[in-house]
């Protein structure tokens, strides 16, 4: 990981969290579907990042989100789960030694791989997030509905952002 990648990731972290906290926090469709665009930051961290560092970054990201959302621990746990799924998926779907791309972005990995990766990671993140928030299984269908709708919304925004930046990079 060179210094350029670190700078880009720091800039991405700040930009995505800024958008999440100051714009998307006030946005929801019928109080059911809320986009969590900041997961994109953890999704596109470089491939060769050590696992411990990945967890620490995910932990700090979740903690920052929780501070602003006043839900200490909820986003943190969700981000940790997201990091775990990310490691699992990458190790299952790709040969780690043969990876020559720097980071798992849409432009590098292609639409099919990236969308599957994003769907799985976002789904796990949202399941943990919404069930920890509700903290009970009695309103299971409501929580599950919220989760699925939010997954769709988040996925949409993530793909949108990726498409925009992918085009600019390749041009």
């Amino acid at each position: 990981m060179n210094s350029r990648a670190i700078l880009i990731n720091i800039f991405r972290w700040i930009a995505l969290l800024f958008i999440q906290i100051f714009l998307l926090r006030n946005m929801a469709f019928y109080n059911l579907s809320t986009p969590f665009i900041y997961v994109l930051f953890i999704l596109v961290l470089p491939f060769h990042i050590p696992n411990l560092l990945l967890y620490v970054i995910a932990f700090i990201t979740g903690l920052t989100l929780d501070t602003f959302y006043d839900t200490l621990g909820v986003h943190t746990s969700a981000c940790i789960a997201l990091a775990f799924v990310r490691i699992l998926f990458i190790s299952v779907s790709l040969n780690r030694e043969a990876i020559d791309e720097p980071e798992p972005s849409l432009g590098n990995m292609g639409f099919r791989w990236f969308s599957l990766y994003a769907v799985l990671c976002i789904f796990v993140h949202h399941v943990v997030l919404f069930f920890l928030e509700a903290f009970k299984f009695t309103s299971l269908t409501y929580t599950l509905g919220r989760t699925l709708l939010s997954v769709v919304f988040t996925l949409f925004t993530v793909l949108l952002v990726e498409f925009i930046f992918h085009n600019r990079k390749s041009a």
Partner: protein
Amino acid sequence: MRNLWIFLSRYNAFFFFIIFFTVGIILTIRNNMYQRSVTFGSTNELVGTAYKRLNVIKRYLNLVQVNDSLAAENAALKTQLLAINGIDSTQVTKVKDTTNHQQYTLIAAKVFKNSVTLTNNMMTINKGGKDGIVKDMAVISPIKGVVGFVESVSENFATVRPLLNQKTFISVVLKKDNAFGSLVWGDDNFDYRKAYVKEIPNHYKVKIGDTIITSGSGGFPRGIEVGRVSNTSVSTGDSFMTLEVTLFNNFSTLHFVYVVKDKFAEEVKSLQPEVKNEQ
């Protein structure tokens, strides 16, 4: 040991996940009010049920102590009650008046002779000149309502001419618009629960249920609630309204009264020496 280390490093993602996720969950439960209440609430339900079961047995075992303490409390209350009944209450209660600093002083007195069935009733109280009572002082009821005026005073006793006497006039006003009138009793009405307010001009609109209060002249402090208007259409034939008022106080069960000592009564009286004060 080496194998364990290899095992741990191979599956480090999973172990890191367990560690970090546990920290996250602990943070969630410890710092979020809602999650905490759910967690400890469900555990508490078990504990609470157990305690409830136990408590039934405990209650039976404790019955003796509870009985004893209740009996002791009863005895203490009864002693207090006897002390109150036996007391010849001479406590002087004070009413604060903001315009004239402490204009009125109340002297508590016990009624020991009373009547409500005559046309000119009289009342005797157990306070007299020795306690500072003089003629024409106003007398009021403990909670609500007026009683009358001090008629004559001896050293230890005084007679009160209550409202239930045809010679008694008390100056009152309607609480909502300050229309003056005088409260009287008698004139075909010998019900001790009712009285008449006379001399209210016809143009005032009075509704049933309006409150009558004392006007502040004639020895009574202003604002003592006298009664509620119960009938507005008492025909008398003159140009003033007569209202039937249901009194707040019950004269037949009157046991304690307050004699109102007005600091400025002498002063006011000296200003109008020629006019005979009727009210």
